[in-house]
């Protein structure tokens, strides 16, 4: 019993988070920045932050994750980190030669009040930023928001720094994919391509954090949104943003800055949310949905109908990020499963309302907490057990202690592979999610069935 220290009785906690269902802003900013081609994320703070973020992203993606740090010392913390950042910019452009340095702050540099744009201007004035290269930034104090906020902030910074409009519209659409896997970004691009829509995706971590074995170490892999593509987003016909929390801010900024109209949608997890995405793409681009995509949808529906009796009444506990949880809950409810305990570490205003709305037909009490932690989730499960857990790797403690199957989904996944290569978004992603859910629940049924009711055909 790894979590033997988790009691069943729930007491109000005021000053304390136990077993968080979130982490801090900078890692989200770092992940987003890796979705710019030839960009070196830069952590303006102590060395540890950068090391932790790189280690966590490395454990999740099993890929080299590059980022530099201002390596704050006691001196920098007293006198400010300007000298460190100017020197860092100089060193980075001299040795690593990226196109872009994407600076994010930390709680340390935020609290001492470093002004990043001012420091970047100073570096520029001193000739430390070569022509045609860029330093962009986002403020990511760790004591505000979560990793989702940091991701959203860096994505918006791409608009703030790069998006330009020269008044001449290009035949392309922007897609902001949200805080999802590289495989999901690839899948979204594929769907757009199948529909014949030209897109610019940002950030785009596909082929950055799910790249092939090449026998070479490329500091800057070939994936990622190029600076040129990012600049062109201001002339796109429209923006489709997936996930309100992660992508909404950038989409709205682009609308304000370059008058590119936007549609902010839920992440396309499951057939309903994917339908909305495909339909929006269809309407905005004025095209028809090709047969091949309709067939994909049909295949997903085929699995749903074939296996629906196994879904009914399956009680599920979920932990993760708001954008993912809203769509996932909708998907589960639409196939007759009962998500009854739902926790996110991220504060999201309309999250609870959305979840209540989506689950109002579920004939069981539904617990929602924003922000909540996995300790609370575990306590809920002890009081009202579930049949399945869906969430990140940290859920495996609960899974083991309570002997409940777990489907790994979300961030971080530190102990399994696949998530960066196979999507859970779109119709195909839905099929994969269902496969995982059915494998987990039916394996359990096989394991637990008494001999007389152990079935060959299911």
């Amino acid at each position: 019993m790894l979590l033997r220290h988790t009691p069943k009785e729930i007491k109000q906690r005021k000053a304390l988070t136990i077993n968080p269902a979130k982490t801090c802003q900078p890692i989200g900013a770092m992940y987003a920045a890796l979705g710019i081609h030839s960009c070196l994320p830069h952590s303006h703070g102590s060395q540890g932050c950068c090391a932790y973020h790189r280690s966590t992203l490395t454990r999740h993606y099993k890929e080299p994750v590059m980022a530099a740090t201002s390596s704050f010392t006691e001196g920098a913390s007293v006198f400010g980190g300007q000298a460190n950042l100017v020197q860092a910019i100089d060193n980075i452009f001299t040795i690593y030669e990226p196109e872009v340095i994407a600076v994010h702050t930390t709680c340390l540099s935020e609290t001492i009040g470093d002004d990043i744009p001012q420091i970047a201007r100073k570096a520029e004035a001193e000739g430390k930023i070569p022509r045609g290269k860029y330093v962009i930034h986002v403020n990511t104090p760790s004591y505000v928001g979560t990793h989702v906020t940091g991701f959203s902030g860096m994505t918006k910074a791409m608009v703030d720094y790069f998006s330009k409009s020269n008044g001449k519209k290009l035949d392309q659409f922007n897609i902001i994919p949200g805080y999802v896997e590289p495989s999901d970004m690839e899948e979204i691009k594929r769907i757009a391509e199948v529909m014949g829509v030209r897109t610019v995706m940002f950030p785009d971590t596909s082929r950055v954090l799910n790249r092939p074995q090449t026998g070479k170490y490329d500091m800057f892999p070939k994936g990622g949104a190029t600076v040129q593509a990012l600049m062109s987003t201001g002339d796109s016909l429209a923006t489709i943003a997936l996930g309100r929390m992660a992508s909404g801010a950038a989409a709205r900024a682009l609308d304000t800055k370059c008058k590119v109209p936007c549609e902010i949608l839920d992440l396309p997890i499951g057939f309903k949310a994917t339908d909305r995405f495909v339909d929006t793409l269809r309407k905005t681009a004025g095209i028809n949905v090709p047969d091949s995509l309709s067939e994909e949808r049909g295949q997903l529906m085929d699995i749903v109908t074939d296996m629906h009796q196994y879904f009914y009444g399956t009680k599920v506990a979920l932990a993760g990020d708001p954008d993912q949880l809203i769509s996932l809950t909708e998907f589960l409810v639409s196939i007759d499963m009962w998500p009854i305990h739902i926790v996110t570490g991220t504060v999201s205003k309309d999250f609870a309302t959305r979840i209540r709305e989506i689950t109002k037909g579920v004939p069981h009490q539904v617990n929602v907490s924003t922000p909540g932690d996995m300790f609370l989730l575990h306590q809920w499960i002890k009081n009202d057990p579930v049949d399945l857990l869906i969430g990140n790797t940290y859920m495996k403690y609960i899974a083991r202690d309570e002997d409940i199957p777990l489907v790994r989904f979300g961030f971080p996944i530190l102990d399994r592979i696949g998530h960066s290569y196979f999507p859970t978004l779109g119709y195909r992603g839905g099929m994969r999610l269902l496969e995982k859910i059915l494998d987990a629940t039916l394996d359990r049924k096989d394991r637990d069935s008494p001999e007389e009711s152990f079935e060959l055909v299911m």
Partner: protein
Amino acid sequence: MTTSIFSERKDQVHRKGEQPFQMACDRESLAGAVSQRACVFCGSRVVLYPIADALHLVHGPIGCASYTWDIRGALSSGPALHRLSFSTDLQEKDVIFGGEAKLYQALVELIDRYEPKAAFVYSTCIVGIIGDDLEAVCKRVAEEKGIPVIPVQSEGFKGNKRAGYNAACRAMFRLIGTGDISNISPLSLNILGDFNLAGEIWIIRNYFERMGLETVANITGDGRVDDIRRAHGAALNVVQCSGSTMDLAKMMKEEYGIPFIRVSYFGVEDMAESLYSVARVFEDKDPEIMNRTRALVKEELQELYPQLAKYRESLTGKKAAIYVGGAFKAFSLVKAFRLLGMQVVLVGSQTGTEEDYRELYEITDEGTIIVDDSNPLELSAFLQEKDVDIFVGGVKERPIAYKLGVGFCDHNHERKEALEGFIGMLNFAREVYSTVMSPVWRFVPRRELKKSRRAATESKFEPGIAACSSQA
């Protein structure tokens, strides 16, 4: 190929044989470098967290707690309070108005709930800046709750990991001397600097037990607060991992007059020598101890050597690169590879001292690259230049090795096999063998490139030779 080194870092890289030995180290990392180093907090956290019946509360924003939640497999044979993640999760208003009230409340709540034997409160960057008086809050809670509540001064920016080790040692030192030592054997010791990764401290304790020695406190693997409180009753401190707990050994020597010796449990030579040096300390008190130790080593080696032979046969002539946190581990690894017939062509660490690097210089072969505080670009260039077969490192190094098509062994906190002790040498050999000799490398571009180059130069009438060498 050209190897990119920051010009400021030139004196932190040494190629043995090219010039007289000189090495700059213990230097702050260059701003802008993709350093593999971590912070003070990280150092403190890894040292203290294996104390399984203590409460570990991270006072700071959520990240510091999230990233250190059970990431290091420090096993416990009993309580597992250390595997939970507790954080005050500081928010903006706490940063403005101070986090002391929140810290007090969190501590009280946690101590009431878990009744731990002691509590460690880790300070983070932000706490250092906003100036929360950790000492005062801890003192108040300690008085109210009647358990030691110890602040760990681990603000991230106050140095690197090494400073964090020191903060952890100072924190533990406050516990030592508070327990009853009346029934401790004169033939006793503390194990310092072992974190019980993959159950390693259990192997070592077993050796000492067979030698007739009582282990008073594990510091800190599978550690217990009450044991640490009586650690001053031990006759000897046996210190592994030069950086992490050496400061504590020094403090205990000064305060309690307890002698210490440095040991390493990695590799056959160092493991045996460690046991002998411990035995020598107790020879006066127990004349038979050396015989028992010799018998132990003999027994273990008789079991080990025949099993090592087959690995050695395959691995002879292969090349290894080492980049680890502390340099002390690197010494043992160099010797361990030598035992396997392998050659170390690159060795480096995040936090080595000049003395450490000098020792590495002494024990390595001509041409070996010695490096301090390296970065991925340098490392990957060295790996390619030296055409290595295996890279030993930590989490951030692993994917670099794999991307290049090079085998890898985690000798850091993500190791899953015990690598200490005689049995650890066998596990190490198996792990090295499993990665170096893995057939997967035959299919990756690096080897295919090599194969095609070779095929072009070798006689086409001797396909057997080409095929054999391509398996290398």
